């Protein structure tokens, strides 16, 4: 990395961090609004307590608590809103000043998301600890699993970012393109394991899910932490995510080139 590139990264990160800090109150609220996995967790826990044998599909109430707290935390790390930002830029014409500068706007958005994540982290840890203590959640003590988690999740985030970015770029061709993102979110939540651990899904659905990147983005890292997945699963998941990431990276670059041309033809 040459000096210029390092400086660009450093300055963008510092600026975006300062920017996100201005919005820290909003970030807290966004964090607290993401309740789906918590609600599902509560219901599964209740059902497990009431079920014969105190477990459902091998998960006790405590297992469910551990899983859903992990899903909540991981989903917080994977939050992406770039589709909305891109759509806004294209519609309002605020993309134009960005096109005049010799840098792909992609980097501003990407670094911005990471900066927001750092602002989010402290409170997130506190809440995770509180949730875990209140419910008696249990996690693996294998350090290798935690390292695998730290390797998978940033990659999963980058994949999610590229996916959402591509959806946002549809704004060049369709108005209100970011609404496609809502359907994709349902797929992500359902097939990623936000609604329940994937092993509890009907087998047919599990087979379909394996063809999407979602289980490896959310369910797999969480299973690693709860001890229900092992390192060979992690390795497999890593390469699958990598393949998807490269694919979407190429797609995004291609859509961006075509999109800018369209933007220039229609109106800036």
């Amino acid at each position, binding site marked *: 990395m040459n000096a*210029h590139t390092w400086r*660009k990264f*450093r*300055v963008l990160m510092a600026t975006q961090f300062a*920017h996100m800090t*201005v919005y820290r109150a909003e970030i807290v609220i966004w964090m607290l609004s993401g309740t789906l996995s918590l609600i599902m967790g509560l219901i599964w826990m209740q059902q497990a307590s009431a079920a014969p044998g105190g477990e459902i599909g091998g998960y006790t109430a405590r297992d469910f608590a551990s899983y859903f707290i992990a899903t909540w935390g991981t989903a917080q790390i994977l939050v992406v809103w770039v589709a909305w930002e891109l759509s806004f830029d294209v519609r309002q014409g605020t993309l134009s000043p960005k*096109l*005049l500068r*010799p840098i792909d706007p992609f980097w501003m958005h990407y670094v911005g998301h990471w900066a927001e994540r750092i602002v989010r982290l402290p409170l997130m840890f506190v809440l995770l600890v509180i949730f875990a203590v209140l419910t008696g959640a249990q996690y693996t003590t294998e350090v290798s699993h935690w390292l695998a988690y730290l390797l998978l999740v940033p990659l999963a985030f980058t994949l999610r970012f590229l996916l959402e970015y591509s959806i946002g770029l549809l704004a060049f061709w369709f108005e209100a393109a970011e609404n496609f993102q809502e359907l994709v979110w349902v797929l992500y939540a359902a097939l990623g394991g936000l609604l329940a651990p994937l092993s509890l899904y009907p087998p047919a659905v599990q087979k379909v899910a394996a063809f999407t990147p979602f289980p490896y983005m959310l369910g797999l890292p969480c299973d690693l932490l709860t001890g229900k997945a092992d390192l060979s699963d992690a390795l497999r998941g890593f390469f699958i995510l990598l393949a998807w990431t490269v694919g979407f990276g190429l797609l995004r670059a291609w859509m961006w080139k075509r999109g800018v041309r369209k933007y220039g033809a229609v109106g800036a």
Partner: protein
Amino acid sequence: MPPTSSDPSVTVRADHLRKAYTVTEKEPGFLGSLRAFVRPNTRTVEAVKGVSFELRGGEMVGFLGPNGAGKTTTLKMLSGLLHPTSGAGTVQGHTPQKRETAFLKQITLVMGQKQQLIWDLPAQDSFLVNQAIYEISDAEYKATMREFDEVLDLSGILSKQVRKLSLGERMKCELAAALLHRPKVLFLDEPTIGLDVNMQERIREFVREYNARFNATVMLTSHYMADVTALCQRILVIDGGELVFDGDLSALTSGPDARKTVRLQLARPETAARLSAFGELIRLDGLDAELAVPRGEVSARAAAMLTHLDVADLTVVDPPIEQVIGQLFRNQDQRSGRKPEPIQELA
């Protein structure tokens, strides 16, 4: 004149630039909305109809025309934001729409409404971002900031959040940020709009200094005659998407047809007929009147007005740009016997 692609002193060239849009039309009322939903009507609007000109390094050119004439569209085509429907633009030897890094580092486009400063942070932070993006060394950055500060006076503003700055302070910072990378070609779209007279002066001085210091080509659009007379030697006038005048500013301000506006505040009401004896009556509103008077006769006519009319106050001002241009068309048409074209409105 056929464009000479090998002339190195030409920094900006427009070669029959044309831009056409498709717009949808809707009939009024609820049924109209329903119909437009199911089967929208479209028509083509030509915003720019084949504009050609050449600018040389160091030239400062005023780009004038009524609203909707195609000024902003032309600037956007030359900066690479819009792709021409036909024709070609060349800036510093590059094709704008390719948006090559080398090209982007040499130009800047400043648009009134669209800003690049980060709203919630101090302007200083946006400057640092630009420094990083344009790969400006620390030494050059410091030197540039020092020079800019001398003319613009940025003291105390740089550490305040942009959202808290006044319009004038914000414009100063926007300009500084836009010129930080010392571009050689400047496209300025209404840079002084909404600013008070002092701030307008300062911005003008800044642009003039920048042009002198860096020998930059400047293309400036404005609604204020003062901007144009202060900065530009040459003007291009565009109307209805077509270039109707390319020549010296003096043709507008000091030619035989040049006029000044005399504003009168009368102590006693006068009839329109009586006032018309002193010049072309533009406006009569109770005790306020405006008359257009040939430039060379301003003193004589003003003296006559003061003698023969009961005047409380008399000021002589430049006519608004629209009037000057309008006058230009009327003269041209009178000479060529052509009827003026209606101004195209962009939907």
